[in-house]
C-alpha cells in the first residue's frame, strides 16, 4: 500500500472533525502545533497531554507489547519535533499524528519481523483487571479476555482498522485518508475484519473448551 511521505500529507481542515475521545477542540490542537512549528517547542507538552494516552492505547492494541508501546509513543513525538516544519497551515493535527503513528508502527513491525516476538504473553498477562466494562451485558471478564486475545490474533491490517474505528473512534473518512484508500474500501475492510475477529474468537473459545 502506498503511504504518502510526511511532507506530502495534508488534510483539509474543512473535513468532519475528529471524533477522538480525548480531543477537546481540533482548532486548538492546530494552533498549538503551529506554535510548535514556529519555535515554541514547549507547547507540544499540551498536545502530549491530550494525545499520549490514546496513542499508547493504539500501540498496545496493535502490538500487544505494552512496554514497547511507550517507546513507540515517544518516537511519534520525536518525529513530530523532527518534522515540525512540514506541518501544514491547513493541516489537521489528529490526522497527522495518526499518520506518523502508523509509520512508526510499520517500522516497528518491520524490525520485529526480523526477530519475531508476535505476542508477548508476559506483557499481556500484566494487564490488571480493569473496572467493569461500561456495557455490563457485553460480557464477563473471561469474555473480555477472550476478545482481547482474539483481537491480538487477527491479521495486522484487520486489527488496525478495528482499532482505529472501534477503539480510537476515527470515522471512516478519517481512516480512509490514513490508509490512503477509498471510504468504501475501509468499510469492506472493517466488515471483513469483524468477520475474521469472530472466527478467531470462536476458535479460541473452542480451544479453551477442549
Amino acid at each position, binding site marked *: 500500500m502506498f503511504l504518502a511521505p510526511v511532507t506530502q500529507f495534508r488534510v483539509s481542515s474543512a473535513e468532519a472533525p475528529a471524533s477522538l475521545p480525548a480531543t477537546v477542540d481540533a482548532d486548538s490542537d492546530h494552533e498549538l502545533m503551529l506554535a510548535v512549528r514556529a*519555535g515554541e*517547542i*514547549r507547547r*507540544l*507538552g499540551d498536545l*502530549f497531554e491530550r494525545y*499520549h*494516552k490514546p496513542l*499508547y*492505547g493504539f500501540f*498496545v*492494541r496493535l502490538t500487544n507489547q*505494552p512496554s514497547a*508501546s*511507550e517507546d513507540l*509513543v*515517544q*518516537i511519534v*513525538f*520525536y518525529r513530530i*519535533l523532527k518534522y515540525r516544519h512540514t506541518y501544514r497551515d491547513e493541516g489537521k493535527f489528529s490526522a497527522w499524528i495518526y499518520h506518523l503513528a502508523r509509520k512508526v508502527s510499520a*517500522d516497528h513491525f518491520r*524490525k520485529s519481523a526480523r526477530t519475531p516476538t508476535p505476542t508477548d504473553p508476559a506483557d499481556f498477562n*500484566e*494487564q*490488571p483487571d*480493569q*473496572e467493569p*466494562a*461500561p*456495557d455490563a451485558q*457485553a*460480557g464477563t471478564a473471561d*469474555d*473480555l479476555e477472550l*476478545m*482481547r486475545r482474539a*483481537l491480538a490474533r487477527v491479521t495486522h491490517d484487520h486489527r488496525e482498522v*478495528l482499532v482505529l474505528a*472501534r*477503539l480510537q473512534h476515527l470515522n*471512516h473518512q478519517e481512516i480512509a485518508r490514513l490508509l490512503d484508500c477509498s471510504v468504501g474500501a475501509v*468499510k*469492506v475492510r*472493517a*466488515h471483513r475484519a*469483524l*468477520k475474521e*475477529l*469472530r472466527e478467531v*474468537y470462536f476458535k479460541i473459545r473452542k480451544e479453551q473448551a477442549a
Partner: protein
Amino acid sequence: MNCQRVQDNFIDHQDGTLPPAESAALRAHLASCPDCQREWSALQEMTRKLDALPATEEPSPRLREQFYAMLETHQRDADTVSPFALAKSRIDRFFAALLPSTPSLQFAGALAVLALGVFTGARYLQQPVPPAVTSPADAQRLANLERELADQKSEVKDMGGLVAASLLQHKSTSERLQTVLATMDQKSPDRHVLTDLLGALAFDPSVNVRLSTIEALAAHADQAVVRQGLLATLPRESAPLVQVAMIELLTSVREAAAAPLFERLSRDETADKDVRESARRGLALLRSPSPTDPLKSKQPSNPVLS
C-alpha cells in the same frame, strides 16, 4: 435485495449512515432471511464485545519524564543560534581533513546526527581542528569505517539506535552515563549500538562518559568497527585519561594499525607524560612477537574504572 448486497451494507447500517430507504429495505430483508439475520447478529455481537474492551492500562511515568526531557533539549536547541549547523560544518571540515581523498559528507552527516544529541558545542568548538595526520594505511582504514557507518546511516538518522535516542533525550551526564553502562549488559549488541557508542566516544563532552564508553566498547574490541573507530577517535582526543584508556585498549587487542599513532603520541612534546608513556609501552608491545596473553587480550584493564 440479495443477501450479498444486504451484507455489504451492514457496516453502514451499523453506523447509521445508510440512507433511510435502503435502511428500511435492509430491515425488511433481515426479517425474512435467517442467514442474513445470523450474520447481522454475529456482527453486532462482535462489535459490542470489541467496544466493551476496557481502555488499556496507563503508560508508566517513564514516558512522561522522557518526553519532557526530550522537549527541553529541543527547546534549547531551538533557542540557540543553530549550534547544530555550526557543529556540522566543523565536523564536515574535520572529516574532510582526515579523509582528503574520499567524499566525507555522508559519513560526517551520519555522525553529525549522533552529535546532535551528545554534542554541547563547548568541547569541540573550543578546539582547533586537528591537523591531517593520516598515513595511506590510516586513510584506508578510515575509508572503511566511513563505509561501514554509512551503511548504518539511515537507521542512525532515524534515531533508531537506543543509545543515540537516549543520549539525545537525557541531558544530565549521569543519565548519559547510565545509558552507556546499560549497553554493557548486552552480550552481542546491535551493530548500531556499537556505532552509537563510537559516536559518544567522539562527541560526548564528559570525560566520564567517554571513559565508560571505552569500557563498554572493550568487550567488543574483537569487532573491526570498534577498533577502527578507536583509531579514528584517538588522534583528536584531548583528555589524557581517555587517551590512556584508548591506548591500553588498542594495545590489549594488539591492534597493529595503532603503531603509527602510538609512535606519534610517544614523541609528541605537547602530550601529557602519562599518555606518552602509555604510547611508548603500547608501541613496544605491538612490536614484540605477540605472545598470546589470555588475561590481557580478553578484558583490557581500564586505569580509572577498574
